[in-house]
């Protein structure tokens, strides 16, 4: 197979530091060697490739953005580039990493107790422990504030009851960041998954994210000590949403990786494949229109996303910026995967090509971490000051 070529139409790389280029290239090389050769098998078999966990720890992806506790202390732009490269391989492996980094390590570091930090952060960074994040429920996705999960105070701890759904890494996790309503409001809990009353059955037979573990979390009279409460969590949704901002930011970059994977594959195919008297497909007007649209959208996404990353590194990126890049990039990643699937003709329906896999994955990525339409409402609310959610 021809070596993957990223897209750089407008001198994007000139805006990156030498270190940022090295970070991107090192992950790209790793994905070429360790993800591309095995990912399709796992996608077909509906399994997560467990050796990735230790490898991701070894190369420093887990905890890349964390300062202290063994983390890499990397900038938002560097971590963004890491997600871009991971998702060029597959959305499943990017999901695995961004859940651990954005939705487990981040909240423990921001809202956890010293004890929780010291116990779990080093283990999550070195790959000893896997974590997941339980906010969404079967009946409360876009409206997490309506959650039914309850935490009742006892003399020396809490009793948790409720069900969470669409939980990446759920069945393979050692700990879960779980949100539950207390008398005072919504709080976050850090729950060991081997606690009595805690189960995390696998959701099987998905069309999408098949190389990733997706689960339910069921808590039935799950007793946890007082120390499981994350003391820094607020009484509303602020804590939960701040974590989602981290993950959404990573997804926006990841989507660019998927776009590039599909563009590279489609371009190689139409340049090589001939029809009608030996003319390459690439020489036909409708194909060129697709290529030009795709390259334009990748280029727009790159600059917008990099700028949000630069703002984030200066502490100036807000949730609306992140909402815009998450929605836009996922929307175009899905459209581009579909366009490339078209360009591949009949071959595009086989597992010999990746566009179909990216296309199916992005049905999820467009939907999770704030569905496409919800991001319109977030930005709409930001522009007008009039919330239109309900």
């Amino acid at each position, binding site marked *: 197979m021809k070596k993957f070529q990223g897209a750089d139409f407008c001198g994007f790389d000139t805006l990156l530091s030498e270190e940022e280029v*090295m970070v991107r290239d090192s992950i790209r090389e790793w994905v070429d060697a360790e993800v591309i050769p095995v990912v399709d098998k796992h996608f077909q078999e509906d399994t997560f490739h467990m050796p990735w966990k230790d490898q991701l720890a070894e190369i420093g992806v887990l905890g890349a953005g964390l300062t202290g506790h063994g983390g890499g202390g990397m900038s938002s732009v560097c971590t963004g580039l890491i997600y871009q490269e991971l998702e060029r391989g597959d959305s499943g492996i990017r999901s695995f990493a961004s859940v651990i980094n954005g939705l487990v390590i981040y909240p423990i570091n921001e809202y956890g107790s010293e004890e929780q930090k010291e116990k779990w952060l080093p283990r999550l960074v070195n790959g000893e422990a896997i974590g997941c994040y339980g906010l969404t429920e079967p009946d409360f996705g876009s409206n997490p504030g309506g959650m039914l999960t309850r935490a009742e105070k006892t003399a020396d701890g809490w009793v948790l009851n409720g069900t969470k759904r669409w939980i990446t890494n759920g069945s393979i996790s050692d700990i879960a960041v779980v949100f539950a309503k207390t008398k005072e409001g919504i709080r976050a809990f850090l729950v060991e998954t081997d606690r009595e009353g805690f189960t995390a059955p696998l959701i099987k037979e998905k069309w999408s994210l098949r190389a990733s573990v997706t689960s339910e979390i069921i808590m039935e009279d799950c007793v946890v000590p007082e120390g499981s409460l994350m003391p820094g969590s607020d009484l509303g949704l602020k804590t939960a949403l701040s974590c989602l901002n981290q993950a959404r930011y990573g997804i926006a970059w990841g989507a660019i990786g998927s776009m590039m994977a599909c563009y590279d594959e489609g371009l190689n195919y139409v340049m090589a494949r001939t029809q009608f008297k030996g003319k390459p497909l690439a020489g036909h007007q409708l194909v060129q229109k697709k290529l030009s649209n795709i390259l334009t959208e990748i280029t727009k996404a790159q600059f917008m996303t990099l700028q949000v990353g630069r703002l984030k590194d200066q502490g100036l990126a807000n949730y609306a910026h992140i909402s815009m890049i998450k929605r836009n990039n996922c929307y175009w990643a899905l459209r581009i995967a579909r366009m490339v699937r078209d360009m591949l003709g009949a071959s595009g329906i086989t597992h010999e090509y990746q566009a179909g896999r990216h296309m199916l994955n992005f049905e999820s990525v467009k939907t999770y971490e704030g569905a496409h339409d919800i991001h319109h409402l977030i930005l709409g609310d930001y522009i007008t000051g009039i919330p239109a959610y309900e």
Partner: protein
Amino acid sequence: MNILVLLKRVPDTAAKIKVAADGMAIDPAGVEFVINPYDEIAIEQAIQLKEAGGGKITVLCLGPKAATKDIRTALAMGADEGILLVDDTAGRDAVATADALAAAAGDVEFDLVLAGWKSVDTDDGSVTHFLAAKLGIPCVTLITKLELGDGQVAAHREVEGVTEVVEVKLPAMLTVQKGLVEPRYTSLKGIMMAKRKKIDERAAEAGEPKIRIRTMTPPPPRPEGRIVGEGADAVPALMQALSDEQKLL
């Protein structure tokens, strides 16, 4: 033990090479450059020796300013310091290159010099020999295994039909062959640490060129393939083409 590793920046082996307009060099436009893969093996070997017994690894490179990226990669893998002898002359000949490297090596304390047995761009493979001669140290080429002893090293070489094990006193130059060790991935932590490591940049003191490139031409295009037939019926025609026309059988 202190180790000096030689590094060259070369076009990626997957790159499509085009000859520049002047017909004297390759056109670098659109070509991705990487560390010479054999030098990467030398870097890995140096790191493994350092991990086992301590010491310091200095990476020495003659090349354009852009080669700082490649030195930085070696530092991210685990080398300690870099020296870049800045030289924009494409195709600097081996003797002149060795002159410049020898001058810089004089400032470095080392017990061992490691380098790829050749660079994959020019396939010349002689810089290391000239450099060893200039430094007055022995040179063992094409090694596939290395055993460090007290003040000496045993090196395995795969030569025609046998494995030869040679002993050499340190300091020495060893040029490495594929199979010695497998280069590691650069870790993100290594990249962060490499930021703080020193790269000393200075102008290359390359001597007068002894060799001048007169022309560079691409190989002739391959003749188009020919389909002699389809299925089992085509076998006799194929056999005939292979034996009579191509003289391959």
